[in-house]
């Protein structure tokens, strides 16, 4: 039903660049050779937004512009960015910090990766504007340790920018000071949670911290800190260039602008697609990604921590925005859609999810350490070994209920909620495995054509 051409090459992310209906904004340089160099970026209008912000606007005007755009944080929680920036305390002589959360470790999410690899200057420009708005002179990028190429490109780009006078004491010839440090994580999912990220940045164990105090009051090293996602920062570049009205003209009532959606699983063209907020799942899955390869039975709407939804028209036609998914009992998350094929047994699929969270639990609080990290994977192993009973299913549901909403940070919920949803929509498969001692679907090879 779509006239979109097939993927250009396997290693490149597919974006909607070829779809004439949508303009590609943040991903316009992704996939272009040498787009990561300063020369390329400048020759394509780079750093004009930063120049505009620094020379023609005051910091509070920048914040107002972002507020007016109704941009919401793209990291998953969807907190309004302009409001977050205005939480920074008044300038009092203390060092102020901007931290970019590039610890993109949610399974199903890979939008930030290609920006950092192919268009690092776009991120740097967004950070300059962000720093100017919150009047921070120091910014840090906490990049996922596994993103080696992205790290290298970012380090090179920061050096290039510094040499060109774009970073440093006099950014773009103004008296604004901004410098950026790129910091690699050591491979912990929990360090994508902002307070654990701050601990990790300080060299402490990656455990979440107590809130309040919120980062704006006492963040990294106790200093006022704002933490934003990579694509939140890159969105700001275009809000400044084209104005808040342009951004707010797209999307739905509570969710404005464009967003990078990711789609993975057995679809014809998995990848990252930039769409206005509120496009439907059907558009993403069928029009852009070419639809599932075989029969599908459900999908995770926004990364593995969002409760999966069944493959029904009412969900497929649902707009991908914060409010609609909340009403459906799920979340937009990072916008990473994972399609679940019909022949993948849900018990096995959920075990895969649970194993991930079990391994990533930091061990700080009881329900997550003992429930999610210890007990739940053992229960799945028991089911998959054919030793489960109907009572075990009740026990699992009860235990997951005890882990949900009781833990210190959202990691336990991120595991408990998808498990609960899998029980809600696919309980028949759980019952099948305990009744028959074997899974309903046994297909394991997903690599055939």
């Amino acid at each position, binding site marked *: 039903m779509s006239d979109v051409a097939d993927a250009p090459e396997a290693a490149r992310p597919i974006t909607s660049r070829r779809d004439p209906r949508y303009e590609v904004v943040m991903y316009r340089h992704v996939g272009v050779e040498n787009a990561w160099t300063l020369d390329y970026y400048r020759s394509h209008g780079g750093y004009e937004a930063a120049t505009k912000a620094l020379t023609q606007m005051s910091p509070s005007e920048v914040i107002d512009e972002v507020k007016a755009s109704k941009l919401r944080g793209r990291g998953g929680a969807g907190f309004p960015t302009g409001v977050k920036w205005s939480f920074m305390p008044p300038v009092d002589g203390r060092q102020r910090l901007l931290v970019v959360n590039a610890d993109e470790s949610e399974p199903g999410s890979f939008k930030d990766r290609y920006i950092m690899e192919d268009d690092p200057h776009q991120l740097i420009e967004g950070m300059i504007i962000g720093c100017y708005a919150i009047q921070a002179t120091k910014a840090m990028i906490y990049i996922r340790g596994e993103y080696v190429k992205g790290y290298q490109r970012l380090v090179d780009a920061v050096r290039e920018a510094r040499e060109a006078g774009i970073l440093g004491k006099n950014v773009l010839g103004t008296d604004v000071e901004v410098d950026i440090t790129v910091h690699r994580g050591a491979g912990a999912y929990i360090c994508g949670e902002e307070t654990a990220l701050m601990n990790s940045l300080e060299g402490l164990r990656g455990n979440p911290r107590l809130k309040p105090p919120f980062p704006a009051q006492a963040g990294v090293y*106790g200093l006022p800190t704002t933490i934003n996602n990579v694509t939140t920062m890159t969105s700001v570049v275009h809000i400044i260039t084209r104005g808040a009205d342009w951004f707010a003209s797209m999307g739905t009532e509570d969710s404005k602008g464009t967003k990078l959606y990711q789609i993975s699983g057995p679809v014809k063209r998995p990848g990252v697609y930039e769409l206005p907020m509120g496009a439907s799942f059907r558009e993403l899955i069928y029009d852009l990604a070419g639809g599932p390869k075989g029969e599908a039975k459900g999908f995770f709407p926004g990364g593995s921590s969002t409760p999966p939804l069944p493959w029904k028209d009412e969900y497929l036609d649902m707009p991908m925005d914060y409010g609609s998914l909340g009403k459906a009992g799920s979340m937009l998350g990072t916008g990473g859609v994972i399609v679940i094929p019909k022949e993948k047994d849900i018990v096995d699929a959920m075990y895969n999810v649970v194993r991930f969270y079990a391994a990533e639990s930091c061990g700080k609080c009881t329900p997550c*350490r*003992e429930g999610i990290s210890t007990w739940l994977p053992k229960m799945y192993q028991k089911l998959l070994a054919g030793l489960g009973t109907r009572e075990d299913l009740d026990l699992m549901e009860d235990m997951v209920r*005890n882990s949900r*909403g009781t833990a*210190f940070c959202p990691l336990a919920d991120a595991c408990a909620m998808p498990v609960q949803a899998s029980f809600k929509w696919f309980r028949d498969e759980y019952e099948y495995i305990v009744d028959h001692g074997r899974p309903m679907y046994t297909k394991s090879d997903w690599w055939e054509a």
Partner: protein
Amino acid sequence: MKVHINDVDMDFPQGTSVIDAIFAAGYDVPYFCSQEYMSPIGACRMCLARIGAPRKDKDGSWILDEETGEPKIFYFPNMMATCTTQVMEGMVVDTLSEDVKRVQNGMVEFTLINHPLDCPVCDKGGACELQDRSYEYGTGVSRFDFDKRHQEKHHPLSELITLDRERCIHCKRCVRYFEEVPGDSVLDFIERGGHTYIGTLDPGLPSNFTGNITDICPVGALLDTTSRFRGRNWEYKHTRSTGMDDASGSAVMIDGRTGRIERIRAALNPEVNKTWIDDGTRFGHEYVDAEDRLRAPMIRKDGELQAVTWEEAAATVRDRLSGLSGKDIGIALRADATLEEGVAAKALAEALGTGQLDHAPRPAASVVPAQNPASLTDLATADAIVVVGDVTEEAPIVDLRIKDALKGVTPPELMQHGVPIADLRLKEHPVFHREKLTVAAPYRVDLMKHAGRALQYPAGGETALFGALQALADAEGEPELDEGQRAALGMSVEDAAALVKRLKDADNAVLVYGGFVLATREAAASASAFGKAVGAKLMIVGPMANSYGLELLGVGPSHERYAYPDMLEGSRALILSNLDPARDPDVRRMLEQKDFLVVHDLFLTETAQLADVVLPAKSVYEKDGTVVNLEGRFLGVHAAPVEGGESQDFIGLVGALGEALGQRLEGRSLRSARRVLRKRFELDPVELGPEGHLHRPRSRQSARVAIRSREAVEGNVLVTPSMLRIEYLERNPHLLRLSGGPSLRIHPDDAALQNVADGDAVQLRVGGLLRRATVVVDDRVPPGLMLLPTLPEQPVGLARADLSTLERAERELEVAG
């Protein structure tokens, strides 16, 4: 803040945690991770409750419930950890409903799935928070039918502490304790998720305050190695008393069983030690139960010491003293004798007509501040602190209270249920405001790592240091210091001037000093004068538990030439209590010449072996009495039930002697001694509460007679304060193994010069005393100086070692072999 807890309405100040509100209202919630005086972190999730609060509309008025017209309560979507939630105006807290109960049951079940439940063989059984909470809030049934996690069950974290990693429930109290209280981050979680365990990167726990983690561990994971497998909690007799190993007056709980002390724990005294004690106080009790403890009096018959009754021993003393005049008799007590024993000693001296009475060690200068004394609370709330010396060894609790000041959180107000369980002002990974603290010492001391300014001055240079600082304090405008004064500062003049300014500007500055300054009258006078010049309060750390009290009471000689140790030479007969001066061969020869020597001690020391009468003494744990700590706080000392044979304290000794003399001496009994104290201090020791009484009676006259000033020694050894009691170290096996024995710390160059190597066992004469020690080569020791820990007979300060007497023990063995 008005808060409604179940069915109780109460008012709380802003910032109170909900868990404290619940306890104050008389309700209970289970918790494992919160701990008094430490940051709440919300890790165990046991204290969850259903919490709601009214909300305000945009116009500032409460949103009302349409049905009732009352402010509508909006409940949080999830159960909230009450330890990390603050009370809010109009908050409603529910800890009793079925929903809360279900979550509590679930959390107990989670906590227990990896806990071994080896309660029958666990030392904590019967006093275990997990056990209690599982009974109160669990279902009694586990649905977890898999293998539990298996980990190391007897992991020695140090010589003193054993960790059972299976029992650990990851409350993180021990990790946070080290980070927040002593500021020595030595423990942490290793691994993550279900594999998380407690451990250290390097072996051992390098801190003076490690034992406290065994008190706060909610389960039997961290145990005091010295008391492991020694008894059940319900078998112990718990005696609350006062720590007698330093001048801080820390509250301790002595747990005894079948006539032995099995362990010592910290007790609560909010204004003194809070709930912490140092390892010396906690683990230094094993000597009390040593095999060779004296249990009966002995008198020398036919050249041999033979056991007799107290009556016979007292009669012998009476008979042998009868021919002597008062000025021939000397009496000396150790400075951790109680006030009551001091009264008895004074009465005895009066009855014998002698002015040769003293307590030892007694420094050259007074331990009672002449002006403006600081309490420990003053110290904990100070905004500028100068420490001269090594308080971490001398009175370790002072070190911890300094760190309270550096954290900048004032001591919490007590609530209906006591110390707040979750003081939300305390944060994990606290920032220590080092700029408040200056530490000066002749060598690198532990507290320097927390000090904004750390300076090393030449040993013995205290007078010059304070002199130079005084010159800066007096100077108007540009200070002029000569070369000598600049050298004495150990820091730049600008730095020193900044320090003086900081002290002058501070609202609550405290100057802390101990033995190094007290060693000479000049240094103490210049320190006190400097304190006055900058308006700082003084905290003087005396050498022993009751140095302050015995000085206040006037247990001293009538003339400076009668002081200890001069009396050892001047008298013909001596009564020595818990002192062992015969370690000095010259003194030994002197004692051999005495007409009559009475030794009152726990063991047959070198001095006791020379005695004509040996009387068994009670240890500090077996006495009832009163001591005065370094801030002037009168504190009760209570006897633990220890099987000490016929041993008596000095009161018992005086009582027996008085009976033999046919005199009713003041201080013949505890009651009679206390009658004297009541009159003397206008304070009744019987009525002292568990927290003692900060009472600074106006000194009626300067009762103190100084020790005769000695010629300044050209010292090559600095006798340093020690948390461990070196005189008992050999009989404290665990501390001995931990410390490797008393150490002679020496600079590498000097070690090469003296031909000694690290680990060598050596002996040499220091200030006359024959000292045995293990060589520790350490480049932080100033060249030309050796460091050796103090003994009661060898006070802190500079001393002269006769290097020609230096012998290696191995060499002796070779000769012997």
